[in-house]
């Protein structure tokens, strides 16, 4: 490896995310018998509904229409929360630095610049509430799926490797003209 590439690689942070549980086999309550594409469609609709609810009620600004968009290589902020039990995986929320600041300021009703620790805190809560609302909306999941404490990563140079080996469900709605990415990586 060339010296510059080696230096660059040594500065990168690699996070490997996994959420496994000893939950009952047979997974997912009411979803288990459905074809994979139907599960994907249902869960996509529920994630979108959950995200819209959270932004309308807690941020006070509705999300724009969801678009087909690929994940950015690195988002300035990524908040994540693990799900374990009947549904097992990681839900994440990604956005730019500017969007993160806007979300935190709106949640706090602040016109001043929001401190970095409050921005991280706000994004962790957003992900936590989307995951909570998501599992409340999937029949049979509210009591059969546990949420972890949220984690937030920020920076310009990191890689996320979800070890979930099942489906990835992703929506990319807009917030004040910029895309945000909400992803659910499921274990099979």
């Amino acid at each position: 490896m060339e010296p510059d590439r080696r230096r660059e690689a040594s500065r990168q942070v690699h996070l490997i995310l996994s959420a496994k549980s000893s939950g009952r086999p047979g997974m997912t309550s009411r979803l288990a018998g459905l074809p994979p594409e139907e599960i994907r469609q249902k869960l996509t609709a529920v994630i979108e509904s959950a995200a819209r609810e959270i932004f309308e009620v807690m941020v006070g600004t509705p999300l724009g229409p969801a678009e087909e968009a690929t994940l950015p290589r690195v988002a300035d902020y990524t908040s994540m929360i693990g799900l374990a039990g009947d549904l097992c995986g990681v839900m994440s929320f990604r956005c730019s630095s500017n969007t993160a600041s806007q979300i935190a300021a709106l949640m706090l009703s602040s016109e001043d610049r929001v401190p970095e620790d409050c921005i991280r805190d706000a994004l962790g809560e957003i992900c936590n509430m989307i995951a909570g609302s998501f599992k409340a909306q999937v029949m049979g999941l509210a009591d059969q799926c546990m949420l972890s404490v949220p984690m937030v990563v920020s920076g310009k140079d990191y890689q996320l490797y979800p070890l979930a080996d099942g489906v990835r469900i992703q929506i990319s709605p807009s917030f004040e003209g910029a895309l945000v990415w909400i992803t659910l990586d499921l274990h099979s």
Partner: protein
Amino acid sequence: MSGLRVLIVDDSSVMRKIVDRSLRQAGLELTEVLEASNGVEALARMRESRVDLILSDINMPSMDGLELVRQLQAIDNAKGVPIVMITTEAGESHVVQALSSGARGYIRKPFSPDQIKERIIPLLGGSNGA
């Protein structure tokens, strides 16, 4: 409803501020707001202070909200104080556990000031105007 002292327990400082603001928007006049980021801190606060209302998250590090509710029963300052859980956990088992542990109310995040008003004011002996 005026002159209230409240303890807000949540590991998110942003959420503590949102709960504080929502209580005020619901028409409660707060004279003192104590904060704690987990159950252990909340117990310490309650050993030193008296409040009129406790609002607590469930999922928190160190000591969760359900254990907090159980341990509050042994603290004199907490006797008779209504405890309301504010949480993302919406499962029936969580609600049953919280209420059987001693909580008097349960509010799911996300919540609006109207929901706060509807659930909390009756616990403080007032009418929510509904």
